[in-house]
C-alpha cells in the first residue's frame, strides 16, 4: 500500500499529492491528513474518480484508504 503523508500541509496540497499517487499506481493509497475538511476533500476526490474509500480517525488527524 502506498502512503501519502499530507499531515499539516495547506490546501490544496493534500488533494494534489493524493491525485498524483492515484495516477502513479494501481495499488491502495493511504492518505494521512490533519484537518476534517481535508479528509472530506480527499474523500470527494476518490468519489469523483469512482473509487471506494474508508476513513478512520487517528491520533493526530485522519487516514483515508482509497480503492
Amino acid at each position: 500500500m502506498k502512503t501519502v503523508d499530507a499531515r499539516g500541509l495547506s490546501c490544496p496540497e493534500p488533494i494534489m499529492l493524493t491525485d498524483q499517487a492515484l495516477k502513479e499506481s494501481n495499488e491502495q493509497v493511504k492518505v494521512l491528513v490533519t484537518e476534517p475538511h481535508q479528509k472530506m476533500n480527499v474523500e470527494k476526490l476518490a468519489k469523483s474518480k469512482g473509487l471506494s474509500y474508508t476513513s478512520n480517525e487517528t491520533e493526530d488527524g485522519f487516514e483515508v484508504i482509497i480503492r
Partner: protein
Amino acid sequence: MNMSSSKKWLALAGVLCGAIAAALAYFGNPANMAFCIACFIRDTAGALGLQTTATVQYARPEIIGLVLGAFAISVATKEYRSTAGSSPAIRFVLGIIIVIGSLVFLGCPLRMVIRMSAGDLNAWVALIGFAGGVATGVVALKKGFTLGRAHVTNRMAGGVLPVLMLGILALLIFVPSILKFSETGPGSMHAPLVLSLVGGLLFGAFAQKSRMCFAGSLRDVFLMKNFDLLCVIAGLFVVMLIYNIAMGNFKLAFDTPGVIAHSEHLWNILGMYTVGFAAVLAGGCPLRQLILAGQGSSDSAFTVAGMFIGAALAHNFGLAASATAVNAETGEVVAGAVPFYGKVAVIICIIACFIIAFGNKRSEGK
C-alpha cells in the same frame, strides 16, 4: 448538517452570508463595502492607532465576530485544531502583501464580488487580475510550491487570536475612549454594534462550515475543475445583486462617485493580481485566513497579523488608492487614483510573491 458536502448547501451558505452582508449595509455599513475584510481590518487597525487616516478608524465588530464565530463553531463541531509551524514569517509577509494589493484596488476579493454585484465595472476588470493571480499561484503549486507542514501544538496556542479579538471587543464595549473613531468617511458609517457582531458571528460560522474562500474557489476550478467553492460565491453574488437592484444601488458604470472605487484599470488588475497570487500561496483569501485562525491555526493568525501591519503601512506610507468622488464645492467628479508609491509597492509585492512561490519547493520542506 454538513455544509461542505453538497453544492446545494454550499450555495445556501453563500446566500445566507450574502443576506448578512446586505442586512449590514442596510443598517449602516458603507453600501458597497458591506463586509469587506481588508477594509474592515484597515478600519480596526485605525481604531487601534496603527494607522492615522481619520476617515477609516473603527474597530469593526464584524472582524471580531468572524474569528469568534469560526472559533465557536469549530469547537462545537470538534473541528478545532491548534496547529502551527508552517513558515509563519512568510505567511506574515503574505498577509502584508494581500492587504497592500487590496488597498490599491480598494477592496478584498469579497468586496470585489460585492462591487461586481452593484454593477461596478472596475471590479469586473479587477477580476481579470484576480483570476490571473490565482492562476499564477496554481502554476507554482503544480511546480511543487509548499510552505511546509504545520504541526499540532498545545490547545491554548490556537486560541490566541480569538482571545485578542475578545480583548478588542471588550475595549469597544467598556472603554471605547481608548480607541479611535472616525467622525466622517467610511469609518463613521456602520451598523449598530450588536448587529455587526451577530452578523460577524453568523458569517464566521457559515464560512467555517462551507469553507468559503474566494481564492480557493477559482483555484479549485483551475486546478481540479471542481466548482464546489464557486457555488458559495455564486450564492453570495446573487443575493447581493438582488439587494442592489432592489435598493436602486445597481449602476453599470466605471466612474461611480460614492462607491469608493477608482478607474485606473492597470492598477485594479495588478492590485487584485497581487491579492489572488498571495492568497493562493497563503492557502486562502483574507476571509479564509480569519476563519482558519479562528479554528486554531497559528499560521493563519500570523497572516492576519500581517494584514493588520499591511493596512498600517498602506495608509502610513500613502500606498492606498483614493476613490473617485464629487468635489463638494464645484460639483465636479474627481477621478480616484493610485499614488506613485502605491504602484511601486504593488510591483515589489508581485516580485516578492514570485520569490516566495518559486523559492519554496516541496523537496525542501520534508
